[in-house]
């Protein structure tokens, strides 16, 4: 697999606080990278850096095929205004806003893409609903449709499953799998250890001033999760015992 983005010897943080240093990794096409870490470990800062909103303290980012025209992005919902007077189809169309003409008019081809993205995300049946009438899961599906509209080689998803039910999560995970099959790279910030990680190839674990990168199985070990302050000893013991018991039962 070729890399969309190469990161070398990266140090990230603020002038008065270094979050981690010495990170090198390739974000490869057709792969999904999970980012985990305790609060304040640098997950959001890492995403900001990938988006170009802040510079690293040191190190190098290079795009082998040149910087992408666009990075697909789904932010946390904290600043999203659900009361804004928009319909679902308008929200989805935002993904292609850079191509809009005067006064924001959509051409026929873009309208067709919006319709297709809504079908893929399962929101075509609520295309004319106002945002304030949507459930959390419906809104998240609409935001995934907006990511589809961005048609980007690299997609950043910041805690996309924080407020969705299992059915919606499964549907959205199938979209992530589809993006992988299309050769896009997906970077996924996850808050909890869950079945979501089954859909990820690699993990980046942040915490305690360190950054560990590798395959999910090698990085997310109980010892390392405790060492990085992601889990307490008792949480790790309970979680991995339950996991072993479940495997034995199966």
């Amino acid at each position, binding site marked *: 697999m070729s890399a969309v983005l190469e990161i070398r010897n990266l140090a990230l943080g603020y002038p008065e606080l270094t979050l981690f240093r010495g990170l090198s990794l390739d974000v490869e096409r057709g792969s999904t990278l999970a980012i985990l870490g305790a609060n304040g470990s640098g997950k959001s800062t890492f995403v900001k850096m990938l988006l170009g909103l802040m510079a690293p303290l040191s190190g190098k980012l290079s795009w082998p095929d040149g910087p992408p025209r666009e*990075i697909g992005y789904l932010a946390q919902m904290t600043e999203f205004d659900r009361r804004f*007077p*928009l319909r679902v189809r308008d929200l989805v169309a*935002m993904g292609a806003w*850079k191509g809009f003409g*005067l006064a924001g008019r959509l051409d026929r081809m873009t309208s067709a893409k919006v319709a297709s993205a809504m079908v893929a995300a399962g929101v075509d049946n609520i295309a004319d609903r*106002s945002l304030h*009438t949507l459930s959390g899961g419906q809104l998240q599906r609409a935001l995934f449709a907006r990511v589809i509209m961005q048609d980007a080689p690299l997609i950043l998803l910041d805690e996309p499953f924080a407020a969705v039910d299992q059915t919606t999560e499964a549907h959205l995970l199938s979209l992530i799998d589809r993006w992988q099959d299309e050769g896009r790279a997906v970077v996924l910030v996850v808050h909890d250890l869950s079945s979501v990680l089954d859909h990820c190839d690699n993990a980046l674990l942040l915490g305690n001033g360190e950054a560990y990168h590798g395959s999910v199985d090698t990085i997310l070990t109980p010892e390392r999760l405790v060492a990085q302050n992601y889990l307490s000893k008792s949480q790790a013991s309970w979680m991995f015992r339950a996991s072993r018991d479940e495997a034995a039962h199966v």
Partner: protein
Amino acid sequence: MQRAFVATTVLSASVAPIGAFLVLRRLSLAGEAMAHAITPGVVIGFVVAGLSVTSLLVGGLVAGIVAAALTALLARKTILRSDASLASIYLIALAAGIFILSAAGSAVPLKSFLFGSILGIDDASMILFGGVATVTLVSFAFLLRPLIISTCDPTFFEAQAKRPLLIEQAFMLLLVLNLLAAFKTLGTLMAVGLMILPATSARYWSSTITGQLGLTFFFALASCWVGLTLSYLFPETPSGPAIVLTAGGFFLISVLLGPLGFGGRWRKPSDQTSKTLAQTSNKERRQ
């Protein structure tokens, strides 16, 4: 009187999109504060160069830009948030403006600055209204989509736009320009009334941005025409407050009857598409 009707019609078209986005961007009170913050600039312009459109524009623009820059500086570099910064700046500015006006022994009564003089509009003022409306509407043709995205999902917009702050700065500049136009007709105390009240009224009726903009214009225009007519029929009634009070009347009607106000509560709960914002808010509170 005919001039007043034409002037307020043009003014309504100009302030409607500004008011709509002030409300949607949760800047309603910031707009009010900015209206007061430009007062010293207008007053100094008047004291130095007399009561002319040029002195109003230059003085008001400089004061508006200085107030916006100081507010941003305090909010970013000190512990104060932007609302407290702007409140501090505008209170000082308003007091300074009135102090300068009184100290200069102005021949223009304070009341004219506070409430405007809509029935004494000259040719230069008409040109000001036309110019501001043209600049505003043409700018909105380009700014509309970025403004929608930056208002609805600021994090997404910041990540996608090359210069996200540019949209905010352009909007604030348009706000100051429209405040100056409204300032001439409605005065410093009433200028924002024609922006905010029609926009908040429209918010109770429409769930689309097109509807929001259209209804804001409708309520602004109707407020101006009804207010001016009342002022004409009852000569003791000052036109500025009459216009804003009429806008207030539309607001009350909207709160009571609008589908997104209390009016929505009277509909069938099974009607999913007409589920009101009030109902959504209650659900959020319960969660």
